[in-house]
């Protein structure tokens, strides 16, 4: 893998990313202390995703990696989203279905 940036530029990038990560950590703790209701989760996850992206793109050099590598990284996170998303369809729906009373349905009688 050819080096795309000069050593000085790479060093600067690392320091900047490092500072950004610390700032975001500070931010997520601050936001958590205030009650924003459902938005707390959204903000916390958004910050976590941003931090993860910074690590992946810059520390892990995915920015300079081959297409296959990029696709692999993307597929991994996408598949996790699939696992959680589809399973939660069941968990979310479970409550709703169980709350609805069955109407007009009789239990079958053997022999009828």
């Amino acid at each position, binding site marked *: 893998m050819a080096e795309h940036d000069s050593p000085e530029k790479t060093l600067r990038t690392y320091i900047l990313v490092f500072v950004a*990560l610390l700032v975001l950590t500070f931010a997520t703790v601050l936001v*958590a202390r205030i009650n924003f209701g459902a938005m707390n989760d959204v903000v*916390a996850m958004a910050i976590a995703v941003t931090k993860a992206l910074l690590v992946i793109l810059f*520390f892990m050099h995915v920015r300079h990696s081959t297409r296959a*590598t990029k696709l692999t990284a993307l597929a991994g996170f996408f598949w996790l989203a699939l696992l959680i998303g589809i399973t939660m369809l069941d968990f979310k729906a479970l409550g709703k279905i169980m709350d609805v009373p069955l109407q007009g349905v009789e239990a079958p009688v053997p022999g009828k």
Partner: protein
Amino acid sequence: MASLADTHTPGAHGHSSLQHQFDTMEQQKESSTLGMWVFLVTEIMFFGGLFLAYVAYRTRYPEAFAAASHTLDVTMGAVNTAVLICSSLTMALAIWCAQTNRRKGIVLFLLLTILLGAVFLGVKAVEYADKFEHHHVPGASFQFHTEGGHTGAEDPNLAQHTQLFFSLYFVMTGLHATHMIIGIAILGFLAFYAWRGRYDREYHNPLEMTGLYWHFVDIVWIFLFPLLYLLGAHAS
């Protein structure tokens, strides 16, 4: 290529670290990188199952999860997050030193990464000890006392449900810590080889691959921290 001879003599087929199944160092490096990322994908799905369990139970027992999360020390968690971020920086710098042929720098930054990793584990040990003291370890001796703000009014079985949180807490952080220990062990070997001068601008694959692994373990914590620690951080 009529010769089936050994290709490990330097200069005969390129760098002495070129393995026989590869044609060029670049092919070897790209293969290693892709291979390590495929492995990291398996790790994403491995931890992923635990994240699913967490999301499922948190959705179902929000009060219990908030109450249980409230017993974790946010400051310790935040400090640990910062410690891991620092260790990712030192890991990246170790590779930077390899790319710029700074042998002593490689060793220094690898050792710093190990040190920071050890600090993380030390803090976790303190936290675990605290959990044991408060009987928050699931099992026969588990006890949970509701605190101010979490009355358990909507959830009569709150104490039992908090055991789900703590079970997940221990499995998730325990698995994460196991990965850290393995990483530290590998880093130890790398520091030794680096001191012996094995890595330079042309060849430092093992450093890059271990770096990928280390950063990934950092990313797992980046998600664990808000999910486990920051749930009950605000007054409801």
